[in-house]
């Protein structure tokens, strides 16, 4: 599979971002190798948007190091041409048509594939000559994505791009994205607070909660490294000593443990299950604060 020696698209070390009264990011250290589709997950207010804005150069870090495609984000046209950023509000000129936007892109970008946008919109049935403000949310999201991809960036940063889309539009959007990655030379980071959708498309995950990184790595590796143990209520010190306990739910009759494995589990009283991405994320967030159920609502339903 993917070598862990792939060149790195994003590398941050101890990245912090403070506003006047609020700490948006705290000592964030993440690595995203090239060619990945990375899911940036976390509850609202965790710092996902801030992280994406710092990576794209729209915001400056307070402290720490940021390296995007080999160097710090800058205003250098070559850097700007190699990254694409799609903000949550899908910023487009409402009074301009899709064709106008294609023209703007052609004038402002050195690398631009206008025919790609037109062909994409045609296949989705999105009109080119209507003001963008009259298009539906899903159509605007597809247009914005096509425009961002038309400049052929090497890194794409997307902030909650599918939050306001219906399931079909969501599926089409993500498929469009994965296709672009399949063509090669593209790394994607997309933030979301809906985990279930992303599991099949993403192969890398960054979990942010309370402005800190809880998880960062290849999804397959992380899932293989964790297990859920279900068993009778008993003393679990031995297990906790040998492995890393992430989250525990204890009732009088039963104990459920989410552990990060350190070798095989020796205790036969426990039934071992594999973990899915959603359960893993919930487990790491559950250790953050309070009962797991609160976070279940947050992620399961999505806002």
């Amino acid at each position: 599979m993917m070598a862990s020696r792939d060149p790195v698209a994003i590398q941050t070390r101890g990245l912090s971002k403070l506003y006047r009264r609020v700490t948006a990011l705290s000592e964030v250290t993440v690595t995203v190798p090239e060619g990945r589709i990375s899911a940036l997950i976390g509850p609202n207010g965790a710092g996902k948007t801030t992280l994406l804005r710092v990576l794209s150069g729209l915001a400056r870090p307070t402290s720490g190091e940021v390296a995007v495609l080999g160097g710090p984000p800058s205003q250098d046209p070559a850097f700007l041409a190699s990254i694409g950023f799609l903000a949550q509000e899908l910023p487009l000129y409402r009074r301009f048509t899709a064709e106008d936007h294609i023209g703007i892109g052609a004038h402002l970008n050195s690398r631009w594939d206008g025919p790609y946008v037109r062909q994409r919109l045609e296949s989705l049935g999105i009109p080119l000559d209507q003001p963008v403000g009259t298009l539906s949310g899903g159509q605007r999201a597809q247009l914005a994505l096509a425009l961002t991809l038309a400049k052929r960036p090497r890194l794409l940063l997307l902030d909650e791009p599918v939050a306001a889309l219906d399931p079909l539009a969501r599926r089409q959007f993500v498929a469009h994205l994965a296709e672009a990655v399949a063509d090669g030379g593209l790394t994607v980071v997309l933030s979301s607070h809906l985990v279930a959708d992303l599991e099949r498309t993403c192969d890398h995950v960054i979990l942010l909660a309370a402005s800190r990184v809880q998880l960062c790595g290849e999804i397959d590796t992380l899932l293989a490294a964790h297990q859920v143990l279900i068993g009778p209520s008993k003393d679990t010190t031995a297990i906790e000593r040998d492995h890393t306990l992430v989250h525990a739910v204890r009732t009088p009759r039963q104990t459920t443990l989410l552990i990060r494995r350190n070798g095989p589990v020796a205790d036969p009283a426990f039934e071992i299950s594999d973990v899915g991405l959603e359960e893993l994320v919930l487990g790491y967030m559950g250790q953050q604060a309070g009962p797991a159920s609160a976070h279940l609502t947050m992620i399961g339903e999505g806002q």
Partner: protein
Amino acid sequence: MISFRLDGRSVVPPYLQIVQQVRQALRMGVLDVGDKLPTVREVVAATAVNPNTVLKAYRDLEREGLVEPRAGLGTFVVGRPSGPPPGTHSRLARSLAQWVHSAREAGLDDESIESLLRITLRAAAEEETA
């Protein structure tokens, strides 16, 4: 051409589902030697699955000798899945029926039997990779 259907809720990982669906298609005659598999791009467009997942599945199929990539043209079917020798299925089915009978007599219901089977399969897999 074959089209893949991925079940997000299955315990089987997506890449394995693709491998299994290709094997099944070959067994059923939907796919035959010389047919072209959908490109990575086509699979991704249809299922929104990660491109590396498809690559992994096709690599596994190549390793099993079922498919072969041809530069610039695509991935083509070159073999059929080898079945077990005739009579193996019926022999194993008989010993399994005996085991199920003793398990039932010991008081296990279907669910416990399935659970036991899962645990045993997992342990065996771990032994193989160890």
